[in-house]
């Protein structure tokens, strides 16, 4: 187990401090930054080194995957704060379960599965807790997703409508659409992430696109073709 390997003969307070120093201004240790950018060091190698008790390799994994984790979480849950929490929790879960990593499989598939599971859980919690109307939701999403640049108002409104439609979709369709149409993963990659068969992933993509189009046309007032 990772905990046993990583904590051998190291006092707890020293260990906690070791994770945060010496650090670059960005908060990432210099050795970790080098590891993160080294093209010859695979994710599996970083996992292997982390399992021997080193901290820098895990910080390098964080540097490699934190943005991807955040964006996937954001596109599934739809809120920046929730996405940040999901990304952070994903890395904590990853750290806890590093000892169970199967080195014969792809690391990012495994990690994306953790992120997607947490994001879908978060989405379901948010949906069950939310009492506001769809109009309020569309407005809040549009506000949150206001681009930093000066995008035209029409475009901003369209983006708000897209997220309103996505929010009406079932979580399983939303997950496939986000991974395929926004993040560009293939159905063969999506299937193990969602723990479904390839055929199921393809069917969900098919159905998700159909439902999204129907809801999109309904919301934007376009005539049914």
């Amino acid at each position, binding site marked *: 187990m990772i*905990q046993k390997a990583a904590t051998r003969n190291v006092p707890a307070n020293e260990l*906690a401090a070791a994770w945060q120093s010496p650090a670059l201004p*960005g908060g990432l240790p210099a050795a970790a930054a080098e590891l993160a950018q080294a093209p010859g060091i695979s994710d599996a190698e970083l996992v292997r080194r982390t399992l021997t008790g080193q901290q820098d390799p895990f910080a390098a994994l964080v540097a490699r995957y934190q943005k991807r984790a955040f964006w996937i979480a954001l596109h599934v849950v739809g809120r920046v704060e929730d996405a940040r929490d999901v990304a952070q929790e994903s890395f904590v879960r990853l750290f806890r379960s590093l000892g169970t990593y199967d080195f014969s499989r792809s690391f990012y598939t495994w990690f994306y599965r953790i992120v997607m599971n947490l994001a879908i859980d978060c989405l379901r919690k948010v949906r069950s807790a939310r009492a506001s109307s769809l109009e309020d939701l569309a407005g809040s999403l549009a506000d949150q*997703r206001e681009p*930093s640049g000066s995008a035209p108002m029409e475009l901003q409104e369209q*983006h708000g409508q*897209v997220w309103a439609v996505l929010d009406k979709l079932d979580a399983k369709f939303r997950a496939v659409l986000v991974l395929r149409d*926004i993040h560009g993963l293939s159905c063969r990659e999506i299937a193990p992430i969602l723990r479904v068969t390839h055929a199921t992933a393809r069917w969900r993509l098919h159905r998700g696109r159909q439902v*999204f189009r129907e809801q999109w046309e309904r919301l934007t007032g376009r005539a049914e073709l």
Partner: protein
Amino acid sequence: MSRSTCRRVRDELPWFVGGDLPAERERAAADHLRDCCACRRQAAALQQSRKALDEAGRVVPGGVDEPMFTAMQASIVAAVGREEAGAMRGEAGGAPWRWAQVLAAAAMFLFGWWLVDTEAVSPVFGRPPIAGPIGGVAKAVPYAGHRVELQPLGDEWKPATGGAENGVGPGMMGRLRLRTLEDLEDPDFVVPVAPLPTLPTAPSRRDH
């Protein structure tokens, strides 16, 4: 255009617009769309909604920038460090607590064993007799009736005391039989009968 072709192509359109069809079927669908206006409209609608989704996915919300990611990275590393330190503290401090749990479980087991052991005399459930001579004859009197034991009926069943069966009748639905442990036939063992209290006689009406 045949209806069956339209139906087949329309069914494949959600995959077609995303480039998820095999090359051969994609070519066939493209050929059909070139000639079929209704299917082309369907494909255009799907393509449009997909494009809107793709564009919305590229939007960067306000507040999401490099400083945010830097802060997020630091908080992730700190959270993992806390997790690691907590796990180690748990390991270090957990051992004595685990031993205490094991000892408590063992003590409870031994106490339970001692309670159910019928051979041992239990001061908790023993029935102290009311000792002392009553009328100068009795030795002792059971506190709460006779001590009995239930045993299943069977061919090989014999009274444990070796004496005659003192069964007081069939037990639960005839499957069990009551057997006294104390020998009630023992002449020295006398159950005292308390004398009835004398009640004052009520005056009759004739006395008035």
